[in-house]
């Protein structure tokens, strides 16, 4: 009965002060919404990096020349020439934990078909490449080991290359193209993969036997990379150690010397990238926390002022018989109603903003439940505390002191 009365009183007070209520709520709404949206962006990018990398083959292992510099955005080995075909042969022969392995040489150049011209990258590989990268063909077929041995001038191309050098919708398979003036016969088109998380177009590639690319295009005898697949994802760490041992003995490195190559499993890569996007998330959380803090200060401010300006009202209520607890309860109910409503609207706005970002800005997002709970709790607690605290002070006054308050 008494509580019901207080609920009525609190509700009336809220309705009587629509503008003030709205302003208080606005602080809460914006605070909650921004935290949810920012964390959704952070979580989303983390998740999308993880799925892209997994889609690239999570048991993939890469071996690059040169010492490890732990940077995720490394080039393809640059000028370091310490990785050779012999290394590849030895690994292939000795490693027991690998199911596929291919040497890789790559270089940029122009793809030409008649008057159509397109800058792209050529990758010299062996037939294992498709299995390692988990790529299928749209049409045609992969070159054979025999074609690798004979350094045949055959190539497979990605969809972007198809679109640019065969703009008329011709069937590419069987056609001749030139890469840096070397003629290649197109024998297959790779399945379309789209952009990866890092914005690289995975379809802008030409694939040819590594022998052909080494001799005819790049004129080198070393490798840019060796790529392999562990038998299973669980074998990946073991494979890394094995390959490292094989290469160290092959390169005749002393115990005191560092590796002159880098072996990485996809797992490691995932964690490297995850930690980068973790940084991004932390940054976003920092920004979100600031807006939550500002929202909290806004709530504090308005709640505090609203109680202060109603000290006279508090005095009157006490004068006609309200107990301290009644006053406290009234303001607490008010603060709870405002905070909860504001918090819920904030959650809705945050979710709305997330959908907007996903749809119209094409950023990957993922709403984390904890972000909803934390932001909601922070705003509700600030609102309730700063509604309660000044009300408690006012309700401890003598009625006449409160009434005389200007």
């Amino acid at each position, binding site marked *: 009965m008494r509580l019901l*009365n207080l609920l009525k009183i609190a509700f009336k007070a809220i309705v009587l002060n629509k503008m003030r209520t709205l302003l208080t709520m606005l602080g809460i709404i914006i605070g909650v919404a921004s935290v949810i949206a920012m964390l959704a962006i952070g979580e989303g990018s983390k998740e999308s990096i993880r799925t892209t990398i997994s889609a690239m083959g999570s048991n993939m292992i890469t071996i690059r020349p040169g010492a490890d510099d732990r940077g995720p955005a490394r080039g393809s080995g640059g000028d370091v020439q310490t990785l050779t075909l012999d290394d590849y042969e030895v690994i292939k022969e000795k490693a027991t934990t690998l199911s596929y392995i291919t040497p890789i040489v790559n270089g940029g150049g122009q793809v030409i078909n008649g008057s159509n011209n397109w800058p792209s990258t050529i990758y010299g590989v062996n037939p294992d490449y498709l299995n390692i990268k988990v790529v299928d063909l749209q049409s045609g077929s992969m070159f054979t080991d025999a074609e690798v041995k004979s350094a045949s001038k055959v190539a497979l191309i990605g969809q972007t290359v198809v679109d640019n050098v065969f703009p008329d919708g011709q069937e590419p398979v069987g056609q001749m193209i030139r890469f840096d003036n070397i003629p290649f016969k197109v024998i297959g088109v790779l399945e379309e993969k789209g952009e990866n998380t890092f914005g690289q177009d995975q379809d802008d590639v030409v694939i040819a036997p590594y022998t052909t690319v080494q001799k005819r295009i790049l004129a080198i005898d070393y490798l840019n990379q060796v790529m392999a697949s562990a038998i299973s994802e669980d074998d990946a760490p073991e494979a890394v150690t094995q390959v490292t041992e094989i290469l160290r003995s092959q390169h005749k490195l002393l115990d005191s010397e560092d590796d002159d190559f880098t072996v990485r499993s996809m797992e490691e890569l995932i964690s490297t990238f995850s930690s980068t996007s973790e940084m991004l998330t932390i940054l976003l959380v920092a920004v979100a926390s600031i807006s939550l803090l500002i929202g909290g200060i806004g709530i504090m401010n308005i709640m505090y002022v609203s109680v202060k300006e109603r000290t006279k009202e508090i005095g009157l209520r006490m*004068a006609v*018989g309200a*107990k301290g607890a009644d006053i406290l309860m009234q303001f607490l109910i008010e603060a709870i109603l405002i905070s909860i409503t504001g918090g819920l609207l904030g959650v809705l706005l945050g979710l709305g903003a997330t959908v907007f970002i996903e749809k119209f800005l094409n950023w990957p997002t993922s709403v984390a439940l904890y972000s909803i709970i934390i932001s909601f709790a922070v705003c509700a607690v600030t609102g309730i505390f700063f509604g309660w605290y000044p009300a408690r002070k006012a309700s401890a006054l*003598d*009625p006449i002191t409160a009434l005389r308050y200007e």
Partner: protein
Amino acid sequence: MSKEIIKIEDLKREFTMGAETVRALRGVSFTINEGEFVTIMGSSGSGKSTLLNILGCLDQPTSGNYEIDGVKMKDLSKNQLATIRNEKIGFIFQSYNLLARTSALENVELPLFYNSKVSSEERKDRATKAIEMVGLSDRKDHTPSQLSGGQQQRVAIARSLVNNPVMILADEATGNLDTRTAYEIMSIFQELNKQGITIVFVTHEPDIALFSNRTIVLKDGNIIKDYQNHNIQSATEELAKLPKQDD
């Protein structure tokens, strides 16, 4: 002889403001019997409001004793004082103190909101009756800003009646009213007094004091006169004697 409802002994109230001490009451003693109609007079600043606030349990004396019905107010907790204010006392403030943007009816209902023994129908009922008593039935949905000073004063009076108090403490309840309205209100008080409610009425105007049975005069925080009025006037009769208003 009827029983003592209010008893104060050597009541003092001092206000300290920095180094300065204002002695608003310097040792006031009196008793008021149940059913009395007492007016308290005195010049501005003589301590009338200060005294009334203490009688209404809104303020605490610096020293001295205050008993209602034989109960020492000093011994009561804040919550017990709140209950006394809620159930026993009707207080009318010098400056009305109505809730802004709240209808007259709801203002009158206010004390009953804090009395859990009163249901919401009873609350509405009693508030409507109290509003009727002060003649504001047609204005009960108006907010204070839509009411004249005298009408606001009458809302405040209705609010003091709504909890069926045993005593009503009025601080210049006719201070801002013309003679006619003042007499109308005095007749309400006389009516309530006849029903047995004790009334303590602070006023500046000597003609208002004529409606009470006793007058206490304060000067600089001391009682300088305390006398019975043997020739009580009836406010209703005085009202009839006033020249008719020309409309």
